[in-house]
């Protein structure tokens, strides 16, 4: 038995690097510090859902073949295609992504990653107006106002609050975990009292109503009192102790999420009204008056209180998610959010960070940009990189039925694309590289099993704040298994060999 410390978790964009694994007989048996998704990944990586051998579809059925045969078949498909798609890349390491760019250029295909159905609009928003941002370490130590807008980290990034925001002890800001527990205890007490009252017929509980969006009285309490201790050695601790109210947590969403339950203030907006609310907040930050009483389901009076809190904080941060990028307005919502941060920075210190989903989606955008100049939706069909979201984005290409082959790696588009787009993906020859038998692999034509990055292969991944972190190899992969990088490299070599033979034949 051995214990491996400081393992980086290869699940979500948080990339928690404090995981402790117990390894027995070459298998992970215990996990310390991980969230539910982390435990699920480390404990289930070797179940029956793992692909055991390369597969090729013959007579409608996937049959086992050798790596050599699968590599040759894949290279043939890609070399003979005139407009192939190379999609995915977010759950593998930067080393494999780098080979992917080379392969896309070689076959003249379209290189796109999962950001296209995730934070692609965020990238477009950033390209419009730039982004004032920070690392999660800075936020952990300094941010006294945390706003989650259109995202639910409790469900999608379970340790985000615990490691980087409200529930972590920073150097200058204390954890709000205890006050949250007290709130939960009080809420349980209230529920018990109402339950007893209901049983005795004293009180009839009505159906829950939509949030009235009224800010609690505690929201506008000062975040810091004057620090009277001038001794540098103990100053930070004293400061924390004299705080009357620590970090504030505000959640803006269309429904009350798990994260909203933990928030000091939850603002329930109407679906698709984020842009309007943000514009209203921007006007209020600029001390303009609004001639309406309500915007997007929220009273202007309450928005004014929210703006007071934003302006009076010392270091605020907005984390945003799919609530902005997938709703009406899409990249304009993000652009507006960033513009709001710009306005707020005229009054105080504010930053903004997208809540990236897959553990290395940020890495994919970074590697693609470093190699080609563009972060996603890169079309190499003209022999040079071309980027035009809406035209070169993979969902649009599939909807227009333009592609004639596809290589999908470390993602599951058949699960996650609209049905019409997935239909064309399945109709054309489909190569899938993934450790597990996901939905895309089930309908694929060539399926490669690969070693799991971050468990069976070391590599590099970028956290959501663009900090690169090393991924560890903690166990050996099953015998004979190749990594994503090796599979791609061998397909690339085979494509080059086939093309050179074709050239010789033509001459």
């Amino acid at each position, binding site marked *: 038995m051995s214990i491996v410390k400081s393992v980086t978790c290869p699940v*979500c964009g948080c990339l928690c690097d404090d995981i402790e694994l117990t390894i027995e007989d070459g298998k992970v048996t215990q996990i310390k510090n991980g969230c539910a998704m982390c435990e699920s990944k480390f404990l289930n990586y070797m*179940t029956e859902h793992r692909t055991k051998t390369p597969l090729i579809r013959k007579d409608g059925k996937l049959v086992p073949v050798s790596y050599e045969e699968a590599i040759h078949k894949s290279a043939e498909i890609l070399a003979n295609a005139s407009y192939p798609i190379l999609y995915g890349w977010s759950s593998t390491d930067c080393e494999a992504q780098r080979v992917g760019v080379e392969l896309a250029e070689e076959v003249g295909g379209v290189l796109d990653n999962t950001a*296209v159905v995730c934070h692609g609009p965020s990238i477009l928003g950033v390209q419009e107006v730039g982004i004032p941002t920070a690392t999660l370490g800075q936020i952990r130590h300094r941010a006294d106002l945390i706003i989650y807008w259109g995202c639910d980290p409790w469900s999608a990034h379970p340790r985000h609050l615990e490691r980087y925001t409200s529930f972590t002890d920073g150097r200058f800001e204390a954890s709000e975990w205890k006050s949250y527990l007290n709130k939960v205890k009080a809420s349980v007490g209230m529920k018990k009292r109402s339950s007893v009252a209901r049983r005795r017929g004293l009180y009839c509980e009505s159906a829950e109503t939509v949030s009235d969006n009224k800010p609690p009285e505690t929201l506008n309490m000062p975040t810091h009192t004057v620090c009277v201790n001038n001794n540098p050695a103990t100053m930070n601790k004293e400061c924390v102790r004299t705080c009357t109210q620590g970090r504030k947590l505000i959640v803006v969403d269309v429904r009350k999420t798990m994260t909203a339950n933990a928030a000091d203030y939850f603002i329930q907006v109407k679906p698709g009204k984020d842009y309007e609310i943000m514009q209203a907040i921007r006007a209020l930050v600029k001390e303009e008056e609004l001639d309406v009483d309500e915007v997007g389901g929220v009273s202007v009076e309450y928005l004014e209180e929210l703006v007071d809190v934003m302006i009076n904080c010392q270091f605020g941060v907005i984390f945003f998610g799919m609530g902005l990028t997938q709703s*009406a307005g899409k990249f304009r919502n993000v652009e507006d959010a960033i513009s709001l941060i710009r306005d707020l920075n005229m009054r105080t210190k504010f930053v903004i960070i997208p809540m990236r989903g897959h553990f290395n989606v940020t890495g994919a955008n970074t590697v693609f940009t470093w190699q080609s100049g563009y972060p996603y939706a890169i079309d190499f069909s003209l022999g040079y990189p071309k980027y035009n979201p809406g035209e070169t984005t993979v*969902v*649009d290409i599939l909807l227009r039925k333009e592609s004639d082959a596809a290589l999908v790696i470390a993602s599951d588009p058949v699960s996650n694309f609209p049905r019409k787009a997935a239909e064309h993906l399945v109709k054309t020859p489909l190569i899938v590289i993934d450790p597990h038998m996901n*939905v895309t692999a*089930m309908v694929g034509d060539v399926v490669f099993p690969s070693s799991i990055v971050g468990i069976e292969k070391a590599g590099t991944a970028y956290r959501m704040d663009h900090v690169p972190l090393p991924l560890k190899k903690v166990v050996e992969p099953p015998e004979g298994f190749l990594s994503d990088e090796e599979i791609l490299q061998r397909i690339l070599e085979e494509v080059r060999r086939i093309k050179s033979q074709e050239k010789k034949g033509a001459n």
Partner: protein
Amino acid sequence: MVQQKLQVTLLTGRTIEQGVGKEAGKATQGYFESTTMAYMDICDMKKLGIKNQTNILVTTPNGSVVLRAVKYPRGAMPGMIYIPYGPWANSIVSNETTSIGMPSFRGTPAEVEPAPDKPVLTLKELLMKQFGK
């Protein structure tokens, strides 16, 4: 009065159960359970005359799918239906990319009706129905 159909706004997104299920395997029962449900507001369920865990048919211009209706446990969300990401949700989401590549996964209109006698398709049945594979 019980209604036959209800117009709602379709939202899709993450849940922790779906996240755990996808890491365990897309063919697992956990993934199936967590992606074949739809959170609804209790008042909307009463309007349709359905109870918790009753099957419903959700229809959009892009298709229809049978799912289990589950009462949303945290607060109200009237006029909304929330389906976790997965092959079932994506069989009905809008493919309108508004010229930037991103399909409209949230905020599109949908229609919900009770379907207590219709079964939720398994993953294999769904793939066979959609792609013939």
